[in-house]
């Protein structure tokens, strides 16, 4: 963003102006819908304001990772689709898309959302889970929207069944075995100010970005992005807000799952 625009927007934020009188640590309206792509084993669409993210989960029979012979494997990818923003381009995944996917993946993996042992089939044969995150419309905070979508997609996924070598993906199937729920809170730091769930305009002028993924008990993943710095005090405050706000996020997930 042009340096002059940045100054103007910072001035507005300095006056406490956020759209629709949103508070510093308020989320925009969160809408989660599971099962939007019934062909996928699990799927969910998340709308966070006008940010729109779709996650799809597929299970594939494969070989285990060398260092974990008795577990299935997780692979998470994210695509910043060119239709989601005039800024996004076609081509191989950008460092931004790779970072997004890896941070979402770390939260889900560290929180042990999926019961990885239940993915074991037989020696050298396991279920591998592919979670693909599609960014459909960009208006800021892709990290939290993507974690919500991926987690909901996994928690609502069905478990395919093997009949001989044939994979049965439809009909009466059990649910994918899961063990935990994770969510993330992503903060933008603009000068000395912290904002939760920033939109595209706010993100265009942020100095630093911090994502904290946690469950009810502990922090599971963190990632700071961009060149701005944060203080130790900032971090403590963000941790407190993340633990508090994650209750809201988990209940949005539970509601979407119909629980």
């Amino acid at each position: 963003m042009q340096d002059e625009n940045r100054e103007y927007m910072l001035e507005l934020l300095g006056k406490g102006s956020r759209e629709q009188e949103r508070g510093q640590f308020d989320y925009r309206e969160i809408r989660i819908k599971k099962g939007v792509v019934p062909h996928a084993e699990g799927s969910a669409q998340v709308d966070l304001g006008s940010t729109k993210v779709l996650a799809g989960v597929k299970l594939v029979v494969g070989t285990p990772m060398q260092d974990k012979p008795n577990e299935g494997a997780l692979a998470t990818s994210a695509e910043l689709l060119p239709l989601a923003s005039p800024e996004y381009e076609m081509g191989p995944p950008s460092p931004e898309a790779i970072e997004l996917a890896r941070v979402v993946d770390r939260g889900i993996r560290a929180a042990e959302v999926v019961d990885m042992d239940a993915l074991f089939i037989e020696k050298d044969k396991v279920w591998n889970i592919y979670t693909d995150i599609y960014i459909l419309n960009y208006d800021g905070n892709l990290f939290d929207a993507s974690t919500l979508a991926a987690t909901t997609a996994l928690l609502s996924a069905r478990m395919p069944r093997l009949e001989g070598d044939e994979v049965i993906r439809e009909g009466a199937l059990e649910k994918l075995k899961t063990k935990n729920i994770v969510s993330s809170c992503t903060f933008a730091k603009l000068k000395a100010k912290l904002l939760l769930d920033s939109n595209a305009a706010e993100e265009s002028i942020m100095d630093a970005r911090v994502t904290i993924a946690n469950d009810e008990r502990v922090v599971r993943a963190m990632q700071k992005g961009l060149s701005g710095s944060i203080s130790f005090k900032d971090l403590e405050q963000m941790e407190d807000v993340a633990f508090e706000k994650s209750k809201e996020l988990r209940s949005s997930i539970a509601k979407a799952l119909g629980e």
Partner: protein
Amino acid sequence: MGGSGEKPELIVDGRRLDKRAFDELRPIKIEAGVLKNAEGSAYLEWGDNKILAAVYGPKEAQPKHVADPNRAIIKCRYQMAPFSSLEEHGRTGPNRRAIEISKVTKEVFGNVILLEQFPGSEIDIFVEVLQSDGGTRAAGITAAAVALASSGIPMRDIPYAVSAGRVGEHMVLDVNKIEDNYSDADMPVAIAPRNDEILLLQMDGSLTKEQISEGLAMVRKAGETIVRVQREALEAKYR
């Protein structure tokens, strides 16, 4: 995180496998100005990690459309040599992990280099991990900071980095490879020592708020040693 098979006892009689205390760094050695062609360079040994960092530029940004008329841009590549680990031959070229580390490393130096002094330019930072034993991103940032300082590119500060982790109930500093394979959390941190601000923060595993604070306190204390080794390397170059 995420090792295989039987988990070894990582802590015996209050000491770690390599006899370190919980808050003890591995030995660190840095030599500045080791590569003649680069504007700045550093060779670092940090435990069994061996890392070369080099800086080229500032020079005209290429291709032209990536140039920023108001400041220099940074290009950064972190890479692990395919022969760097005790395991099998790694894959050549940047994988997703390396791309992410390159990104966060670049962002660390975007904070401290006076980029406004070189509009339209690029500064290239290369971090090559020749031998790896855990904590290479932190070691790479620590080495690249010395390489940058030795290049004479004006900087607000010389950052340092180190990671903290958790092994069972203990927070530990500077996690090595075997500890990382079986640890319960890993948290690499980079800090600008002059204002004590956090430039890089990553974490995965599970940590309470208190454990995060304890880990960060270990990082800051170790910072005094790392900063001293960085300064000595720079002083030795100009002696």
